[in-house]
């Protein structure tokens, strides 16, 4: 097996195994599983970058110009950004979801491996080496923000469900609702950084945890809602400048290759639409009443637009950017 394919296989295996370890860690809270999962995530990420370098060395062709190479960088950058966040804010518990998505992206990417192709004339430019990695990294940052907005929404709606249940139990004479307000804050903690907010904003989950409900126990162990919101914000704050730089460098490249910095090509237009959605996110985030629940939904919609921009446009809509033409 050529070295690049071997490295790819190692990366996929590391992600799959790492995802399993971190999912089990999420439920068992066994320290060693977290360390094992983290080590696998790092190993997979290193293998991926090595794979990209090996492919470039072997073929002499910049490896990011087809969906195979670009999905591979997407997975690698997603994991790399996540590792940064996980170390900084102790967020390994979410690694299972992220590594699983990275493994799927990689496995899907391998189906687009067409072998070595020299690039078409418009792609023979130093801009390919600048623009593509930046854009793909912005997608990766948005994936990280998507994963944490998903966790935010999960915790938010679970809190609502527990509150409704507590209210119903209270109405039938139970005392659960009465204890909800003064229950101790999440007893068990997965060890994330307290800097990310310690406000007790999920009283119903905390009450249910105190009452011995295991599901509530898991949820209580997640960071608080403002902390999750802050993580989403920080990931978007990486993605939005990156996609802005990506659009700007893309425009500079387009000016050189096609004669106009902006052609309303489906790809650049879809990127503009995503940019607008994350701009909405940032503006809504400046409003107190919109921060959290609503901005998390905007982040989810934003990531859907990124998937459309990344894969949808390439696969369904042919244009100057489509890898198929």
């Amino acid at each position, binding site marked *: 097996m050529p070295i690049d394919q071997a490295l790819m296989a190692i990366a996929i295996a590391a992600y799959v195994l790492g995802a399993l370890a971190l999912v089990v860690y999420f439920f068992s809270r066994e320290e060693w599983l977290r360390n094992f999962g983290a080590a696998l995530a790092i190993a997979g990420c290193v293998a991926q970058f090595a794979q990209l370098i090996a492919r470039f060395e072997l073929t002499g062709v910049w490896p990011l110009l087809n969906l195979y190479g670009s999905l591979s960088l997407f997975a690698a950058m997603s994991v790399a950004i996540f590792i940064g966040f996980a170390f900084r804010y102790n967020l390994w518990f979410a690694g299972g979801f992220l590594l699983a998505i990275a493994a799927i992206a990689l496995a899907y990417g391998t189906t687009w491996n067409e072998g070595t192709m020299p690039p078409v004339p418009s792609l023979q430019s130093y801009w390919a080496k600048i623009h593509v990695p930046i854009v793909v990294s912005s997608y990766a940052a948005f994936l990280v923000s998507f994963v944490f907005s998903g966790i935010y929404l999960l915790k938010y709606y679970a809190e609502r469900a527990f509150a409704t249940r507590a209210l119903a139990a209270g109405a039938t004479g139970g005392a659960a609702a009465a204890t909800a307000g003064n229950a101790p804050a999440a007893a068990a903690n997965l060890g994330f950084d307290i800097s990310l*907010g310690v406000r007790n904003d999920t009283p119903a989950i905390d009450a249910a945890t105190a009452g011995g409900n295991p599901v509530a126990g898991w949820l209580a162990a997640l960071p608080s809602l403002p902390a999750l919101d802050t993580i989403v914000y920080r990931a978007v704050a990486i993605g939005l400048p990156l996609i802005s730089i990506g659009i700007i460098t893309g425009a500079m490249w387009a000016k050189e290759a096609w004669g106009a910095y902006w052609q309303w090509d489906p790809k650049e237009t879809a990127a503009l639409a995503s940019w607008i959605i994350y701009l909405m996110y940032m503006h809504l985030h400046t409003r107190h009443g919109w921060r959290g629940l609503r901005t998390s939904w905007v982040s989810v919609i934003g990531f859907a637009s990124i998937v459309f921009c990344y894969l949808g446009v390439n696969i369904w*809509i042919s244009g100057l950017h489509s890898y198929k033409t």
Partner: protein
Amino acid sequence: MTAVRNLYAEFVRTFGNVLFAVSLFVVWGILTLIGVVVDQGQDPSAYFAAYSAPIARAIVRLSFDNVYHSPWYVGIIGLILLSLTVCTFKRVIPARLPPLRAVKIDAMPLHAFLDVAGDPAAVRAQVAAFFRKRGWQLRERLLGGAEWTFCDKHNWARRGVLIAHLGFVIVAAGTTLYWARGFSGQVPIVTGRSVTIPQTKALIRLNRFRYTIDPIATKSGIVYQPIDYVSHVTVVGKSGIPKNEVVRVNHPIDIDGTLYYQASYGFGIRFAVTHDGKPVPALADRTYLEGETLDLPGSARSIVYQRFVPTVDRATGAPTADPRVNNPAAILTVQADGGALGTALVPMRSWIDVGGGWRVTPARYVLYSGFQYRYDPGIPLVGIGAFVLLAGLIISFYLLPARLYVRVDPAPVGARVGVAATTVKGYDLYENEFAQLVVQLRGATQ
């Protein structure tokens, strides 16, 4: 008068609201996406073929076939600029650059009180030294009889939003400049011929065009990968001096500020026409490009040159996907009175009988090179605007301007230090840092 004033107040209230701006972004986003999903710039018939009649009618009537130049698109950008301006002056500046004023410390979400032994004036000096040492910018004011100390971090970065907004305005100005003063166009030039560009009067002669295509075996079959397109041209600009240049993809040439790009290529055809067996030399001189029509003089008949087929399979006689020339042919449609009679694949140098004694032979093919040209005086502005916008985004997202309101009051024993904090992004992001700061302040004063 009051009616006008009310209207103005209402306008400022609406356009100065961030949620209104976000609603404009929603409309902007949707219009932008319409242009991704609906093919742009097609003939109306293409929409009726692709969509049901009511949708196709709506697309054409609402200008969704050219959405980025529609009144809606220009209008929404105009509204965004208006809203951005109103919002910047009425909301962003007052909110981001607030005056130094007294606050109710215990009413602020991030606040702390410390009781410190010692003379209030000495404690005040100690507290001031503490913050100064940690890089806070201090300003002291006497407000309402109390001495306040205001401490700022990254105060200058409060202008990040203004910078981002200014960047957007500059980009918009640059694109408007192109609309007002710029132009662009496309021009095919046949090998050996010259063309004068109408807007610039520059003369371009194509001496030679060369393309390289490599067949590459992939899992899904042979792919013909274009490797290079190169045009060798002689250009005459304002100076009147001819110059030889090479135009390649990613390597445009600049003639008097207008840029010329290698955009496409194709095959022109010279036809040999006979009528009742006699050559018609008047028709032999012109090169027809794909899509052009050859009218047969004095007859209702014509030939449309549809497409060049570089390689016809010698065994089957069918066109292949190979774009390299190796047994070429032309696809020709015979028309009479504007209606199509039939379409045929005609190999080079063989003929087609058009009827009425006319015979048409695709005699020779000539390569032509398609150039795109563009004069865009807005580019420097768009470029500057993009970088200003980016700088604004980075300043806004990565620097967190925070302000501390500090008061030292005499207490029954010693002094009472009150500290409250605000940031431009609310309180959550600063909760822990504030807690740490208070702990350190306690350590430093006790």
